[in-house]
């Protein structure tokens, strides 16, 4: 029994031992914030004091890129930094803060420009940000996608939260609604992380889908080769429970790629421990920290970092991940789908991807 998700609960659920902490010299990880979100060092220290027992960890961010504003800490920033440093324990962590120095700057674009101008960057970046695909221009998304490629070829892993609105919904004229994918989650060149809950929220039980977990099919990006067979298998296996085809684009990039717990977290923000914090912005740094640990082991062996993970992740065919097969996520509240989006299934699905990490197995699979 437990009272919510803490680092100890995550490490136990994902089979991480006391020894699973970072030790390589040339490893680092990062979280990025875009909304005048700042973390407070005292919150991080308090969080680690309360919840960081039982594993070696760092209690300070190694580097802040950008200028932290004054005033209150943001819940999002606190969550991200506290949890990437809990699974990616003892790994040097950077905090990118991108409020936009000028009113006319776009914070997310500023971050992309920054990545394009820094030769030494952390190997893993987690980002909890997204916009509806249909609110962005195709030219903008295509170019940002090229920026993700630029990061990928450099060996940088970019992880994005899949969103907290399930399949989403775009209300259209004449009641013909459709699902609403989110970008950058829908980019074929990032790893997108969905969310799960414990079957019993206060027990170390198995995981089911978190109904908010973002997922679906891009209307902009074609389905990349690496996921074609997995997605086709899903579409074939669940024909009866699939939403009507008018709601989604079966040939688009399907997401998420994997998932982790996203419900019922404890976060310390402004010196106050806050329970019941939820969302895929919780699961994303958790997965990011684990990938950093795997990078750590690879770097110690003289191997290159994981880089863009998806081709290798899909090659695993679910090996080393806990398959999540129960539950559906939300979507349009209309007569046709009645709030139900996609449902989890065996192997890959557009709610939890391939499932959640079994850390030692994933390490074994990705270390060589």
């Amino acid at each position, binding site marked *: 029994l437990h009272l919510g998700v803490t680092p100890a609960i995550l490490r136990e659920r994902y089979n991480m031992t006391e020894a699973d902490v970072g030790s390589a010299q040339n490893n680092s990880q990062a979280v990025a914030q875009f909304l005048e*979100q700042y973390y407070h060092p005292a919150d991080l220290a308090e969080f680690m004091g309360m919840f960081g027992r039982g594993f070696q960890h760092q209690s300070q961010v190694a580097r802040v890129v950008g200028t932290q504003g004054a005033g209150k800490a943001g819940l999002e920033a606190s969550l991200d930094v506290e949890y990437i440093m809990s699974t990616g324990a003892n790994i040097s962590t950077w905090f990118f803060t991108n409020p936009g120095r000028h009113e006319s700057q776009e914070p997310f674009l500023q971050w992309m420009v920054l990545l394009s101008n820094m030769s030494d960057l952390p190997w893993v970046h987690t980002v909890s940000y997204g916009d509806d695909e249909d609110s962005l221009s195709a030219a903008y998304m295509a170019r940002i996608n090229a920026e993700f490629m630029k990061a990928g070829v450099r060996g940088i892993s970019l992880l994005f939260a899949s969103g907290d609105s399930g399949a989403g919904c775009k209300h259209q004229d004449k009641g013909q609604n459709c699902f609403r994918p989110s970008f950058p989650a829908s980019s074929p060149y990032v790893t997108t992380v969905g969310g799960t809950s414990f079957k019993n*929220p206060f027990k170390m039980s198995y995981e089911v889908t978190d109904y908010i977990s973002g997922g679906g099919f891009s209307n902009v990006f074609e389905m990349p080769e690496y996921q074609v067979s997995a997605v086709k298998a899903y579409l074939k296996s669940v024909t009866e429970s699939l939403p009507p085809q008018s709601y989604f684009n079966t040939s688009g990039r399907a997401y998420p790629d994997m998932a982790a717990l996203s*419900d019922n977290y404890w976060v310390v923000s402004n010196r106050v421990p806050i329970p019941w914090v939820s969302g895929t912005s919780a699961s994303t740094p958790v997965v990011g920290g684990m990938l950093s640990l795997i990078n750590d082991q690879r770097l110690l062996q003289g191997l290159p970092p994981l880089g863009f993970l998806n081709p290798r992740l899909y090659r695993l065919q679910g090996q080393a991940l806990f398959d999540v097969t129960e539950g559906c996520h939300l979507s349009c509240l209309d007569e046709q789908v009645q709030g139900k989006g996609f449902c989890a299934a065996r192997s890959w699905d557009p709610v939890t991807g391939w499932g959640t990490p079994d850390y030692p197995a994933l390490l074994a699979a990705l270390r060589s």
Partner: protein
Amino acid sequence: SGYLEFDQDVLIPEDWTDVGRLDPSEELQLTFALKQQNVALLEETLRLVSDPDSPQYGKHLSLQEVASLVRPSELTQKAVRGWLQSHGITRCLAVLTQDFLQCSMTAAVAEALLPGSRFHRYVRDGVSSVRSSAPYQVHDDLHQHLDFVGGLHRLPPRGRDAGGSRRRSLAAG
């Protein structure tokens, strides 16, 4: 002139309040995304360095190598810089890959540079952003040299603290 981003979304979310058009002398910064070279090769390189079955797996590129791959052509760099200079815009910073250019200018110059644009200040929860209330165009000659211009649309989304937080009741237990 024509639209670079033909599907620009100029709808301002309801939670942002328009507090008026920018004074023509007010400064703003725009980001110009210059057309890159070899994007298809970049994509193929990414596939090779990420595919565990490829002999290239893990052979990642340095930032310098990426820059050599995607750096906009001389023609593109010249055309964009010439265009900016012809409007008196000289305060620009380029990134190492030369595919982004960030320039400072007054609102009046920006509106002349990008026909159609009208810069307004929008405020939400004490945070202000400057964006265009109308779609922008660029001269046809520039279309082949630019992907988009940043700083005209795409207001920051609402953060978790401001209402996005999802907390659940204990009822599930």
